[in-house]
């Protein structure tokens, strides 16, 4: 197939499908959010299965997947939430590299066990790099495909960039990704704006993910948390995964498309090792939080990286 450019035609875009890579770092001082994958681990797995760099540009599909037609042969892989994918009228699963032929149609349905599915294509999706990244910034309206979610009729070019040997994943090793336990958090920069009783209430109460949630922020509903401090917080920087508490006391997890600065106190912060779980939360899911120390958070991340290297077949 030398010389033939691979492309994919979008027949149905799904609910919210965007091109993402590892994210756009180094521009927060211009008000630019990192974007990138909501579930970093699943993107890395999908890309490795087709022999790409872990953060090669791939599709992130949300709640309802896309229907895509392959205009030439390609190798693809799916990872993340299951969404009842059908390729050329045959049911296909995630976590297996899939060869596709010209004319084949991949249909992705609704996710059943999470919010997001990643589709990687051998070579990676080719879009212009904006500030060094292929990630779509839907709020800033740039990156990815014209700075927006995919729509029917879009044609995605696949890069012929040199790819590595595809790797197969040991599926039983993936169990560990889907922990049912509470989401682990460390203390936020303004945790002392909350009295111990209010802080404790946040950690002991279940919250429900509201329908008004997106990649910029997951709004939670449940026990209201009151701040003791009456003073107004002077707008400061927001770390990824910060949980801020606005006046109504209903916490918000600030996520990958977040605003870079804000004026509400931040009670806790999701640890890096659990960030991918936030990316798989669906509206109406229930969540609980548990506090860990910074040292425990670091250890959890290192352990996750060790695990990530062990999930691959020889």
């Amino acid at each position, binding site marked *: 197939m030398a010389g033939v450019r691979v492309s994919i035609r979008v027949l149905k875009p799904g609910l919210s499908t965007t091109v993402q890579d590892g994210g756009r770092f180094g521009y927060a001082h*211009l*008000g630019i959010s990192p974007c990138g994958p909501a579930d970093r681990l699943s993107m890395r797995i999908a890309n490795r299965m087709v022999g790409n760099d872990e953060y090669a540009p791939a599709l992130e599909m949300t709640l309802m997947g896309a229907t895509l037609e392959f205009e030439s042969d390609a190798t693809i892989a799916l990872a993340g939430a299951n969404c009842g994918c059908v390729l050329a009228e045959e049911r296909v699963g995630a976590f297996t590299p899939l060869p596709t032929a010209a004319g084949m149609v991949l249909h992705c349905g609704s996710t059943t066990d999470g919010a997001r599915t990643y589709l990687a294509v051998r070579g990676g999706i080719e879009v212009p790099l904006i500030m060094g990244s292929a990630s779509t910034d839907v*709020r800033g309206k740039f990156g990815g495909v014209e700075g927006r979610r995919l729509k029917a009729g879009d044609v995605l070019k696949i890069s012929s960039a040199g790819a590595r040997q595809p790797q197969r994943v040991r599926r039983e090793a993936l169990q560990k990704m889907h922990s049912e336990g509470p989401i682990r958090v460390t203390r936020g920069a303004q945790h002392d704006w909350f009295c111990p009783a209010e802080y404790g209430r946040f950690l002991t109460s279940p919250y429900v993910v509201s329908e008004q949630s997106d990649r910029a922020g997951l709004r939670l509903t449940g026990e209201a948390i009151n701040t003791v401090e009456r003073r107004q917080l*002077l707008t400061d920087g927001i770390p990824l995964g910060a949980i801020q508490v606005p006046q109504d006391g209903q916490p918000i997890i600030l996520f990958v498309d977040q605003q*870079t*600065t804000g004026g509400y106190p931040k009670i806790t*912060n999701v*640890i890096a090792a659990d960030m991918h779980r936030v990316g798989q939360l669906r509206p109406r899911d229930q969540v609980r939080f548990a506090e860990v120390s910074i040292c425990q958070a670091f250890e959890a991340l*290192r352990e996750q990286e060790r695990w990530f290297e062990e999930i691959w077949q020889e």
Partner: protein
Amino acid sequence: MLGDIRSGGLQKPMKMIPASDSSVLVVFGEAITPEMHRRVLNLFHALRSRRDRRIRNLHPGYVSLLVDFDPLALTHERIFALIEETSEAEPGANPGRTKLVDVPVHYGEEHGPDLADVAAHAQLAVEEVVRLHSSATYDVSFLGFTAGFAYLSGMPETLSMPRLATPRRSVVAGSVGIAGGQTGIYPTETPGGWRLIGRTPLRMFDSRRSAPTLVLPGDQVRFTSISRAEFERLWQECA
């Protein structure tokens, strides 16, 4: 975990608070003063010029700088030491990095639908609002909220007005607004609740430019009142 560390030398103390397992919030004080702003920006520029890839993002605020780092490459202890070392090595003023940006604005009419309300609220004539707004020199405290949105300080207090009770569903890019004691320019079309008094033909943010924003933290901004004809001409020129 380490709570706050105080830097030595002649610098006034700064507080370093772990904000997450991947970030530290460096707090210089609790009140917005020019001195505070200078210290935030000095550390911002000094850390930026290190071009250390382990530091992923820097978020300047009014009195603080959030330093976001790769937790697999750095620990809090090491980033604390790195920040200390950087702030001690570069205690001086901010040399020649800032600029004064002239922003032409067509005030009123469809470009500033709230200009009359702002004038009524301030008990001033519309012309006086325009004169006051375009006579001040504003400091870019930092950028945030959306890509390229500059927080400007220095607006004459008489022009203060609370934001709209119900935000507009869509505000066009270039709109100049007032919210409380702040003024700002919408860099892209977004929903927004600021009182709109005019519009600039300049593209404050363009992701395709090598410098995506026209202003950087620490720059200064001055508004100039222009006619509708001038607005149209510049709009074409900037396209």
